[in-house]
């Protein structure tokens, strides 16, 4: 290895600067959150009298318990259902290679390029027509559907690389297709299923547009959706807003 000391120094300094760029915003809002409610504090100035009570206040005014309940409910509806049906579809397309598998895959991958904003208008009117607008199902149903392109693509990528010998051996032992799926391939797919589950949980928690459009009551939205409403109400109270942002 021939890396000069000067280069080591410059390279590491460069990385440190970038880390500072990433971290400073977090530090700044944390400090701001400790300033007295209603004041307009300076950037990185530690308050004379840290107001830890701001967090309690933000917790109360944002109706945090209701929010946590609502977001948790949405995550717990969306993620398991999306995991099960996308794993099943990925299994059929990647491993069983059902007739038309390529067409199906293309159809799902097409959805990867569709921005949410492109299809939000008809989703709104469809939900009104179906009577699920502003109900607990208003966010989960379209969200599950919107995850399908990525989720099916992801699971198919796993199943398509599984050796066929495993399935053949199970078949010889008389396993039905469901046995093959549930008792052999799902346990083997634990790693991709887990990472997909984590990704979809974060995306759901942070989903904003669907929550904003499809549910009127902020406390029945996702966390991000509620934060948007919180910002609307407390835009002028910077310390409180920062405290709310940190909590969420």
């Amino acid at each position: 290895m021939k890396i000069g000391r000067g280069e080591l120094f410059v390279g590491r300094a460069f990385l440190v600067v970038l880390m500072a760029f990433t971290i400073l915003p977090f530090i700044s809002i944390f400090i701001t959150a400790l300033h007295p409610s209603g004041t307009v504090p300076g950037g990185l100035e530690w308050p004379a009298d840290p107001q830890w009570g701001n967090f309690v206040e933000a917790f109360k005014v944002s109706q945090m318990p209701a929010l946590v309940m609502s977001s948790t409910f949405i995550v717990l509806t969306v993620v398991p259902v999306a995991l099960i049906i996308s794993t099943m579809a990925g299994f059929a397309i990647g491993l069983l290679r059902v007739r038309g598998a390529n067409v199906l895959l293309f159809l799902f991958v097409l959805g990867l390029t569709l921005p949410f904003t492109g299809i939000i208008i008809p989703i709104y009117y469809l939900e009104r027509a179906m009577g699920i607008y502003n109900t607990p199902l208003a966010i989960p149903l379209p969200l599950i559907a919107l995850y399908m392109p990525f989720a099916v693509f992801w699971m198919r990528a796993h199943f398509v690389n599984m050796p066929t010998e495993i399935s053949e051996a199970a078949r010889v032992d008389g396993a039905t297709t469901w046995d093959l799926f549930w008792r052999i391939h799902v346990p083997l797919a634990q790693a991709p299923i887990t990472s997909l589950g984590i990704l979809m949980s974060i995306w759901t928690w942070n989903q904003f547009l669907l929550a904003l459009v499809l549910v009127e009551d902020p406390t029945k939205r996702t966390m991000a959706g509620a934060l948007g409403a919180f910002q609307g109400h407390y835009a002028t109270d910077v310390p409180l807003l920062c405290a709310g942002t940190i909590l969420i």
Partner: protein
Amino acid sequence: MMTVDNRPAALPVSRQTQLNTLARREAFVGWLFVLPALLIYAVFVLLPFLLTIVYSFFKWNGTGPMTWVGLKNYVTVFQAPNLIGTIFNAFWLVVWFSFIPVGLGLVVASVINRVASGRFGEIVRTVLFLPQVIALVAAGIIWGWLFSLSGLVNEILKFIGLGEITRAWLGDFDWALSAVGIIGIWVLLGFCTVLLSTGISKIDPALYESARIDGASWLTEFLTITVPLLKQEISVCLTVTVIAALAAFDIVYVATAGGPGNSTAVPGLQVYILAFTQRAVGLASALAVILMFLVIIVLIPIQRLSRVESAQ
């Protein structure tokens, strides 16, 4: 094919039909596995996609009757400066959300590989990835505060002696869109770095070692090994970030709501405003169709980049 002459004719036939029904049953069961995903995807994604196109040919306020207007909505989008302007804004954001994070991410990933391969590199990756975990809305709020008149950005500028250029960045006609772009860099740099870093770890280390024994500089290493061998990862990064840029909504909605004037209005936000506050559903749909079309147009050359790579 199955028929064997010296056997009774009945056996192969029945065996054939048996196999056929088995295969057919299996195909049927296979389709049952796809059905739930396909059904919900068809209702909430494919159908809305088609409906957006249908709506775009009508004048509709969302409740009253729909009037067929042909291509008039599209003409309006291209003629109204505040609508076509959103598309130019979107392309300006591509530079900030896509080109800079991917380019900078490449540099960071290769610098990590060269001078910080151990635990320090791990820390850098984790720290840079942090903004990716929080909601975009939260990122918008945080930066909305940092860019404000008494925010951290201006404090730092004053500290390094640039006090005279301080301003309310997100309220400035010339600077607001670029300020939004900086938020995009902050959010997406970590994502690109982690993905590209993973790509580098798959490159045979012997390549780097032999280059270094020959005394290759960082730049030579970067241009001759890192970039050419990461085409696949670069194309994934570009795809994700370009979509994030063209379809940006959360950050802009929270940080500037399109203002001042229309200087930070992007198609995603304009679609939302037209459809849900101005009730011009047809016009909003036409803009949405143009947006989806743009995404596909921009993605085609990026996909070709990775295709060329896999063909080699």
